[in-house]
């Protein structure tokens, strides 16, 4: 009893970032009551994320003991948490000009989601996974509706219904796993050994149910249906946020889960095969459905679906290098994604939402469109952007995985993935295509030197630097000692 209390007390030392988040959540809520200036709220949020990020960076590589009996931090989770905080920071910056979202609750929910994501990244406990996913989800439902109009209401309702069902399905899976292993923590030996010894096909069904929940969180096929509708209706900063933070958190927990249930390749079920199929399906559905979209954010939703597939590649190969490349890809994805959304947001504010409305903007907003182009090129994975390096890395991982396992589905994924890159270029290029090649009358005709351009330029610079010197980031990632 006393031991347990002591453990809990000791654990608090390890969760300072989470404590900061928790307090920030309350502080922002309280600050909202005083009808403070928007700037104050924004600054509060920025300070929060910056300090949390700083707190994480200070001990990025340490692996903690088990905290509160159900989670621990290690290099991977710290890195992902850092990415999450960077994303949150960028989201706040993006929201500067979105006047409608400036309420204390907006920032509070951002903080809450980051908090949930932190928990999700760190934990291996089914209960905590469930709760943190719910924290993320419920906050997201609200944020998705932050335009407060007809469409956003519809979007968040759909998000809620789909999310709840997948949470229920995942929970049902958890209940079976608990039943067959007697443990609600998949990192425990008890769980692993009973999974290894069981010949129980119901277990696999349960695992699939659980995976469905995770796939929902990372908006991967076949659980991707909510994403386009929600992305279309939500404000651009929120979309940028939703397409990174929950996705990265979900991928991280999926990573841990997959490495566990794969049992080092001893699992009777060829998980590599099924997850690869999911990735292929995701990439294909995402890219192909994006082809004929007319709304930019909807197109980006499909793009983000497809990107989930590429992100999953790092997990699929079940190699430590795969994880490293996943982290690299994730970092580049965050940067490219925010770059693109920052510029889309600046267009959205001026009332440009469909691709056709971008016609002729290339001649007036040259810089904005060039930066946007670089972002899209990076998402496609072409040089000279870090997107290329990232794709090169994940595909290298795939090739190496194939070399190791000889699983031909991996080479199929390689080919499908690369061919999909061509397809993806087709729609990514549509925006620059309309902007530069089509003549049209843009909604606003004067050039504003917006701060999005500045932000975009910085992010472009990051992408270029990461292309020419990927070692800067990789050496950081390399130091992460990946243990489950």
């Amino acid at each position: 009893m006393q031991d347990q209390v002591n453990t809990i007390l000791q654990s608090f030392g390890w969760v300072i970032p989470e404590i900061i988040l928790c307090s920030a959540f309350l502080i922002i809520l309280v600050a909202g009551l005083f009808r403070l200036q928007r700037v104050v709220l924004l600054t509060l949020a920025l300070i929060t994320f910056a300090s949390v990020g700083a707190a994480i960076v200070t001990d990025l590589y340490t692996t903690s003991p088990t905290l509160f009996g159900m989670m621990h931090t290690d290099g991977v989770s710290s890195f992902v948490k850092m990415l999450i905080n960077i994303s949150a920071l960028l989201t706040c910056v993006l929201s500067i000009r979105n006047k409608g979202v400036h309420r204390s609750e907006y920032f509070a929910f951002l903080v809450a989601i980051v908090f949930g994501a932190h928990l999700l990244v760190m934990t291996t406990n089914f209960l905590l996974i469930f709760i943190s996913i719910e924290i993320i989800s419920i906050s997201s439902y609200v944020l998705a509706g932050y335009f407060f109009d007809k469409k956003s209401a519809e979007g968040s309702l759909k998000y809620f219904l789909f999310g709840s069902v997948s949470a229920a399905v995942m929970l049902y899976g958890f209940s079976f796993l608990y039943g067959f292993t007697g443990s609600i923590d998949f990192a425990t030996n008890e769980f692993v050994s009973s999974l290894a010894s069981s010949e129980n096909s119901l277990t696999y069904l349960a695992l699939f149910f659980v995976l469905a929940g995770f796939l929902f969180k990372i908006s991967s096929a076949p659980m991707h249906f909510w994403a386009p509708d929600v992305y279309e209706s939500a404000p651009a900063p929120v979309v940028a946020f939703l397409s990174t933070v929950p996705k990265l958190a979900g991928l991280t927990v999926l990573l841990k889960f997959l490495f566990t249930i794969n049992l080092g390749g001893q699992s009777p079920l060829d998980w590599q095969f099924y997850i690869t199929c999911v990735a292929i399906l995701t990439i294909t559905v995402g890219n192909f459905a994006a082809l004929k979209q007319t709304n930019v954010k909807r197109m980006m939703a499909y793009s983000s679906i497809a990107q989930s597939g590429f992100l999953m590649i790092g997990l699929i190969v079940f190699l430590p290098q795969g994880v490293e490349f996943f982290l690299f890809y994730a970092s580049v994805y965050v940067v490219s994604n925010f770059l693109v959304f920052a510029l889309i947001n600046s267009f959205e504010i001026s009332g440009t939402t469909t691709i056709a409305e971008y016609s002729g903007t290339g001649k007036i907003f040259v810089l904005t469109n060039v930066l946007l182009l670089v972002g899209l090129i990076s998402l496609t994975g072409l040089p000279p952007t870090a997107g290329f390096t990232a794709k090169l890395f994940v595909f290298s991982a795939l090739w190496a995985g194939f070399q190791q396992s000889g699983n031909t589905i991996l080479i199929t994924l390689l080919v499908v993935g690369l061919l999909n890159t061509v397809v993806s270029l087709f729609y990514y290029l549509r925006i620059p295509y309309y902007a530069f090649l089509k003549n049209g009358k843009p909604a606003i005709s004067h050039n504003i030197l917006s701060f999005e351009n500045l932000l975009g330029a910085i992010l472009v610079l990051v992408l270029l630097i990461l292309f020419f010197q990927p070692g800067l980031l990789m050496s950081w990632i390399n130091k992460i000692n990946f243990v489950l």
Partner: protein
Amino acid sequence: MLCLFLTLFLPLLSSFFSFSTPDRYSWLIILIAPFLLLLTAVFSLIVIFSCWNNTAGLIRIPWISLSDASISANIFLENTTLLMASVVSVVSFLVHLYSVGYMAGDGNPRKYFGMLGFFTFAMQGIVLADNLLVLFIFWELVGFSSYILIGHWSEKTQAGKAATKAFLFNRVGDAAFLIGLMVIWDTTGTFEISTINTSATFEWQTFAGLCIFGGVIGKSAQFPLFTWLPDAMEGPTPVSALIHAATMVAAGVYLLIRVFPLFSETALMVIAVTGAVTAFAGALAALFQFDIKKVLAYSTISQLGLMILTIGMGGVYAGLLHLFAHAFFKACLFLSAGSVIHSLHQAQRRDQHHFDVQDLRNMGGLRKNLPVTFLTFTISGASLAGIPFFSGFLSKEAMYTALLKDNTTFSLAVFVVMAIVSFLTVLYTFRLIWFIFMDDSRKPSALPVVEVPMIMRIPTALLAASSIWIIVSLNPFNFFGWIVTDRSNAPSIWLTIFSVMWVAVALVMAYMRFRKPSFLPNEFIADAFKIDVAYDFAIKRSSEKLATTVEFSDQRIIDKAIHASAYGHVIFAHVIGWFDKYIVDGLVHFVSSIIRWVGGIARSYQNGKIQDYILYAILALIIFIIWAL
């Protein structure tokens, strides 16, 4: 040595000069270009006098060297090359001279003289080259200059068509030539003629020989690629004289002589048969032409056929001799014809009276107006017809001798063909001269036709002078002379007699047939009529029939076949174009539409109904589970 190089490069200099002279000073061209060619001719004569009968020599000029092979542009010197080189330069000089008069008033003397000089250079290149690849290069270049010169009057649509046709027909032959070159390179590893000629027989030799002969067929207008030559008469007449009579078309024959050892028995047989067919077909066709230049063109085809036939039968020296003689008298014929055309044209311009100045039917009785031209035309015509005391007689005799050397049935058959062809040659030559110059009844209505200027008369006269027997040998009935020295090929006296008699018979026949277009009702003529009937029946009808058939086949079948194949290609090309647009590109579109279709499917599930989304997700999950378990 220097003289030799000068012979080669002076024409090039002339060409260069002509092209680079500004339009304002174009009068300079007509002074300088003939002068340079005069120098060329002089130097070539110096070379031939100084080097005649020397042992064959090789001047080595490195050109391309690869790591494991090299190609050098050597010059090979022996009697054949020297002879040919001087023929080319002399004829070319005379044609240049003639052109000064003929082309006076032409809008573009720069192009004309430039290309003429360039042609002479390229032709000299063919003659002197010892390397088959280099020879091929010049071979194509003469084709190119021929193309430009045929199309000299670019406003004439026909000229353009003729030029294109000429180049394309040559190109077909050249492609075969190139294949031959590839075979030779593959098997012997060298292009040097002197090496190839002395090397042992090799695999694919017949094939290589036939391929090279393919080039000859194109260049020398042999069956079945001969129809371009009559069309090429669209070019200026001096050009026809130089390129399409004396030199370029003879280059094929020259090539056969140069690489003669390469040909196997079978190849020679094919060559002989081709030559025979061409000679006969050309002669018959010539008989029924009305365009004065086309008669000469078919005649050229026929004569070239004879040379090739002879060479195919092994009579290299005879072929060469005829080539030599033919160059002069045919050039003279063309130039004379050019004079006729020119003077008629001038008269026509003065008179504002329009008719086709090249049509035989519009001429007659011109001997009084054009006495010099009449003389030169007759002399060279006589030489063509093979009348004694003219060079043509001697070369023909040499050919007869060569054919009869080995007494096989085949050679006999070939001999007969040759005899018939010479007979026909007499007929059409007579017909030509008679219609133009004699037959006063059809004299053009009081046109003020006057003789051409001196600058045109002189070269014609010189060429006419070169058509008499002395140019070949001192004995008017024996072709031994400075060219043919090997006395083992002695002609039999019977052959000479036969030859003379044969020509005489032919002349009589020609006179009977063409003297009067209308028939007189008297006894003698009735007798003659009987002969006429017999002739009519035996020769004229059948030959006319044959000729029309040949012409028909030429115009309709061969040309059609070639046209058809050309059309076929065009149609095929359009099919390809269509294929490219719809099938290959269509495939791409198909793929892209499949992509769109898949995209559409992926999108169609996104119908906005949340319950459907959930249903799809659940079903997908179940499918995955069932698949996995």
